[in-house]
């Protein structure tokens, strides 16, 4: 009689999301300018594992492995990271409206990228600049909050807003002085978010910080639950709330910085996906964290599919996610309370 009835469906939902992700990945391999039919696709993929006589062109294999595969992987990783970071921040700041940019990570990344473009750096350097400035911004925010009087959480959020706006102003200034014929469009395009620069190298580079952040977030997910109750309560339940919050902030910042450094500014995902996941599996991070990671990956992949296939030119991701995010925000503030 005491068998928890809700638990079984939750793990089934998570499994379902996992299957959906695999299907979405397969589906995304077909999409693109260069048509590849199913038998060719499976032939190329299988040939990596077992020996098959080649019935496809070399060009197909190159497109599949060097163009579509990194882009698909990157879309999944970025979606997964931004959603996981959003869900984590929401938990540790006890704030359902928190998103990955709450501590200025995206504003810092944008400034770094703009600076790199201003200095005519190559694509890899832009990513590196964005990453470093993103981490730097959050570090500044953190040290300011340490000096702030009063509540630690409030100090962090206020410092995040302040330093974030400072870096945004810096970005605006760079746009003002940038060369209007090539640099300014490049900055603008970067700020709108895109995965078009995905290569095997970029995937390999960002995979390390992403894994370093995602793995602890996944395993600490039960403790994040306890932290949502507030510091004093968490401490009396045996959680060192200050230390846990710092660890979660470091991990969430690392994955956010890695994501925005390759994708540019992609808003809303980190807010929308955790909330949709909460609707699916509830607020318990034991289920919420894996669900939001998978859901984020699926969502980003599908949005990127639309971005690269809907029109002749690519639609920036930031624009697409805003089109989906803004109506969702309206839904969030007007919805009926959940009734369980």
């Amino acid at each position: 009689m005491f068998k928890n009835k809700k638990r079984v469906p939750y793990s089934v939902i998570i499994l379902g999301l996992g299957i959906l992700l695999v299907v979405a990945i397969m589906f995304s391999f077909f999409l693109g300018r260069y048509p590849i039919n199913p038998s060719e696709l499976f032939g190329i993929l299988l040939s990596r594992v077992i020996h098959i006589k080649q019935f496809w062109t070399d060009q197909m294999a190159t497109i599949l492995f060097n163009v579509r595969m990194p882009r698909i992987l990157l879309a999944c990783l970025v979606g997964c990271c931004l959603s996981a970071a959003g869900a984590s921040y929401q938990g540790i700041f006890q704030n359902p409206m928190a998103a990955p940019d709450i501590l200025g990570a995206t504003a810092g990344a944008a400034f770094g990228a703009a600076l790199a473009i201003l200095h005519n750096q190559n694509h890899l350097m832009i990513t590196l600049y964005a990453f470093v400035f993103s981490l730097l911004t959050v570090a500044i925010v953190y040290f300011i909050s340490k000096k702030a009087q009063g509540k630690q959480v409030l100090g962090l959020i206020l410092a995040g807003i302040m330093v974030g706006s400072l870096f945004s102003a810096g970005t605006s200034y760079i746009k003002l002085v940038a060369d209007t014929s090539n640099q300014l469009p490049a900055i603008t395009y970067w700020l709108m978010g895109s995965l078009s620069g995905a290569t095997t190298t970029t995937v390999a580079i960002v995979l390390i910080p992403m894994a370093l952040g995602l793995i602890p977030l996944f395993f600490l997910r039960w403790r994040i639950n306890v932290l949502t109750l507030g510091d004093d309560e968490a401490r009396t339940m045996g959680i060192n709330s200050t230390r846990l919050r710092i660890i979660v902030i470091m991990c969430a910042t690392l994955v956010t910085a890695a994501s925005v450094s390759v994708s540019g500014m992609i808003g809303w995902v980190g807010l929308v996906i955790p909330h949709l996941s909460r609707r699916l599996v509830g607020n318990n991070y034991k289920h919420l964290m894996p669900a939001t990671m998978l859901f984020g990956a699926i969502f980003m992949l599908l949005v990127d599919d639309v971005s690269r296939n809907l029109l002749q030119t690519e639609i920036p991701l930031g624009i697409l996610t805003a089109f989906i995010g803004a109506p969702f925000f309206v839904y969030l503030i007007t919805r009926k309370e959940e009734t369980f």
Partner: protein
Amino acid sequence: MSIRVSNLSFSYGERLILDNVNVIAEPGQLLSVIGPNGVGKSTLFHCMLGLLNGYKGQITIKGKDIKGLDVNEMAKLIAYVPQSHYPSFNFSVFDMVLMGTTVQVSAYSTPGKEQIKLVETALERLGIAHLKDRGYTKISGGEQQLTIIARALVQQTSVLILDEPTANLDFGNQILVLTQIKYLARDGYAIVQATHNPEHAFMFSDRVLAIHGGKVLADGMPSNIVTEELMRKLYTVDIDVQSLYQDKVRVCIPKIVIEDNHPKV
């Protein structure tokens, strides 16, 4: 004895909040701490829970000095029932109680079968097993308080600290919650609770501690504390204390003075 506070003093900067306070809570006893707002009850509790460290004096739980113990060790000695409040996220009652077992699982894992069993037992004990799949924010205030008490029970400590467990509850729920707390004391827990209701303190407690201005005003049997003299001193209003049903109940009746010529604003 389970928890002993000796010569505890605490100050925020220049302001002395607690002045040489002594508290003893024995297993099987319900100790009620009474006193007006702002006399240092919360500070006393925070010190006992190890949330505040800059105090003078000594606090021991089961003979162990708690100064310098880390949060993990503290959570195994003493559990806390805060005032019910609205959480940021709606957890199920079951998950809410399961959080109390966090101290038993390693940092990177989630509670397992053993912990689930503990939760089921605690829910059953407090008579709220039927609520386990409900959302915490969707149940009544009394049920919320029992949920938080269940969460403290699964922490498997022998000392419980309750901060005004009946605040914000309707009359019936106050009695329901206090009755459950009384049962827990009878089962061997050492319980310290803050309350604003001297009548409840009299009815349910084994011992009452009255704090005023950071000092212990009186400490002893409920019948010696809930008296006219002490109540008037403690709450600084004119109070009549009546004994009913062969002193099973004491009623505190404030003398209300409504002046006819009270100036209008």
